[in-house]
């Protein structure tokens, strides 16, 4: 534990992953775990594992700043978020809280208040967001495990750009209690790790039910760690075509092709109306987030991150009928995608359309001859999936001399164990890995 804390002290000044380090508390808690082991008691499956949590999660005794200046005025939380408590219950030790986009509304972690988090594979580039501090801390080897949240891609995008594993569980599988919301229709909590086994062990500790989160599924945990090495025989795996192969750099599509080849997946499946699913996700997120932040936008607009403020303000001006239609479209789209999963177990798609852009990159960039928003377009392949709550693991492809990329493994709701089997096979075959960034 002391080594992990020393590593953070030594390296985080250059990376800016952490906004809070609990050195004394973490050392004391680690000593408690040691005492439990010495007494012959079960210390839990994550005994002594240092972990970090995005500063969107409540930590008892600390203020949940949510990447903002405004929340920094709030009183300290009185109890841990469900997910933080669950990992601690499993023996893990919380070493600190990590940087993020303000109120989780971004894909870059270029936070105006707390500074940008730097990508450990190239410190001139973004870590991705909004859970950028958590992903970068894992990629740099500062912690082996971290918590993030994902509303439109905020676990998967930074996992891909930083070259680590990230799990966005099925909507409702992991409680969001004690997490500052962005858009409750899509908010998810989940883990980052550098190995599939660590990711599964953390996920197993995090699974619900939890009646204090109204969307948390009333289902018993379905452990994935015991499933890891069952192999992939019999699984039907296909590449998501159509929109999932458009407006992306060649290397992002090549990453999918490499994973598909390794899995022997030659079929391609096209999901319907993916571009509208992304549009509807954008609308629902915009309306729900504007509703949450309206009083703060009225009273303290100048205290918002400028890059976030104008977007929240625009969100407050959307006509109501569009929100209702987007929620109805979500019902339609869920049914169509469910039909696809009657013939397929796992879909493959790029996580991001390109690797990490530079910090401070221009607002737009050209992809396949089309001008897109540099940061917003990072979610083009993640938004249509969180829109209907599908479980997704972003697996990392890290090639020497190149920036990391991710590939999404996508399954039907509550089929996380299938995703873990595929991820474990890819890891065992050396196709995906998350080496510590030097």
């Amino acid at each position, binding site marked *: 534990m002391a080594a992990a804390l020393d590593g953070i002290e030594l390296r985080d000044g250059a990376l800016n992953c952490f906004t809070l380090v609990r050195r004394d508390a973490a050392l004391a808690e680690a000593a408690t775990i040691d005492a439990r082991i010495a007494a012959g008691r079960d210390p839990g499956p994550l005994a002594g594992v240092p972990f970090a949590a995005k500063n969107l999660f409540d930590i008892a005794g600390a203020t949940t700043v949510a990447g903002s200046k405004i929340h920094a005025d709030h009183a300290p939380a009185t109890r841990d978020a469900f997910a933080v408590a669950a990992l601690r219950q499993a023996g893990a030790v919380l070493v600190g809280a990590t940087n993020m986009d303000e109120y989780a509304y971004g894909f870059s972690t270029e936070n105006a208040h707390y500074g940008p988090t730097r990508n450990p594979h190239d410190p001139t580039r973004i870590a991705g967001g909004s859970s950028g501090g958590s992903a970068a801390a894992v990629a740099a080897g500062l912690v082996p495990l971290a918590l993030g949240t994902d509303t439109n891609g905020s676990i998967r995008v930074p996992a891909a750009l930083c070259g680590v594993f990230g799990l966005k569980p099925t909507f409702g599988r992991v409680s969001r209690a004690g997490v500052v919301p962005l858009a409750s229709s899509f908010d998810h909590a989940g883990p980052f790790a550098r190995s599939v086994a660590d990711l599964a062990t953390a996920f197993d500790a995090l699974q619900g039910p939890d009646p204090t989160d109204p969307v948390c599924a009333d289902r018993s945990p379905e452990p994935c760690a015991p499933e890891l090495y069952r192999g992939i025989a019999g699984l039907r795996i296909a590449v998501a075509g159509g929109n999932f192969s458009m407006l992306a750099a060649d290397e992002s599509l090549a990453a999918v092709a490499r994973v598909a080849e390794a899995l022997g997946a030659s079929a391609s499946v096209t999901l319907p109306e993916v571009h509208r699913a992304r549009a509807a996700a954008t609308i629902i997120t915009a309306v729900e987030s504007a509703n949450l932040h309206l009083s703060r936008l009225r009273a303290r607009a100048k205290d918002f991150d400028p890059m976030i403020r104008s977007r929240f303000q625009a969100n407050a001006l959307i006509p109501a009928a*569009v929100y209702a*239609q987007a929620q109805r479209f979500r019902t339609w789209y869920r049914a169509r995608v469910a039909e696809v999963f009657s013939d397929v177990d796992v879909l493959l798609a790029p996580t991001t359309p390109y690797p990490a852009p530079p910090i401070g990159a221009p607002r737009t960039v050209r992809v396949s001859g089309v001008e897109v928003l540099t940061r917003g377009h990072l979610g083009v392949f993640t938004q249509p999936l969180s829109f209907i709550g599908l479980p997704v693991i972003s697996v990392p492809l890290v090639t020497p001399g190149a920036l990391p990329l991710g590939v999404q493994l996508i399954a039907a709701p509550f089929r996380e164990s299938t995703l873990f089997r595929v991820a474990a096979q890819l890891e065992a075959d050396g196709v995906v890995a998350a080496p510590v960034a030097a």
Partner: protein
Amino acid sequence: MSAASRVTEADVERLAALVGLPIDPDDRAAVAAALAGLLDAATLVMEFPLPEDIHPAPVFRP
């Protein structure tokens, strides 16, 4: 992607007044650009014909 929808700073001023949201004149251009992007997304959502028996995804149980 340049937004196809056109939103002026005057549009922003008028809409913001309707919802009681003061927006600094210096911010109106950025808000107009963001709103234009949202209205493009809104067009994609609204132009898709949905049967009337498709209900909104969130379900309330009393």
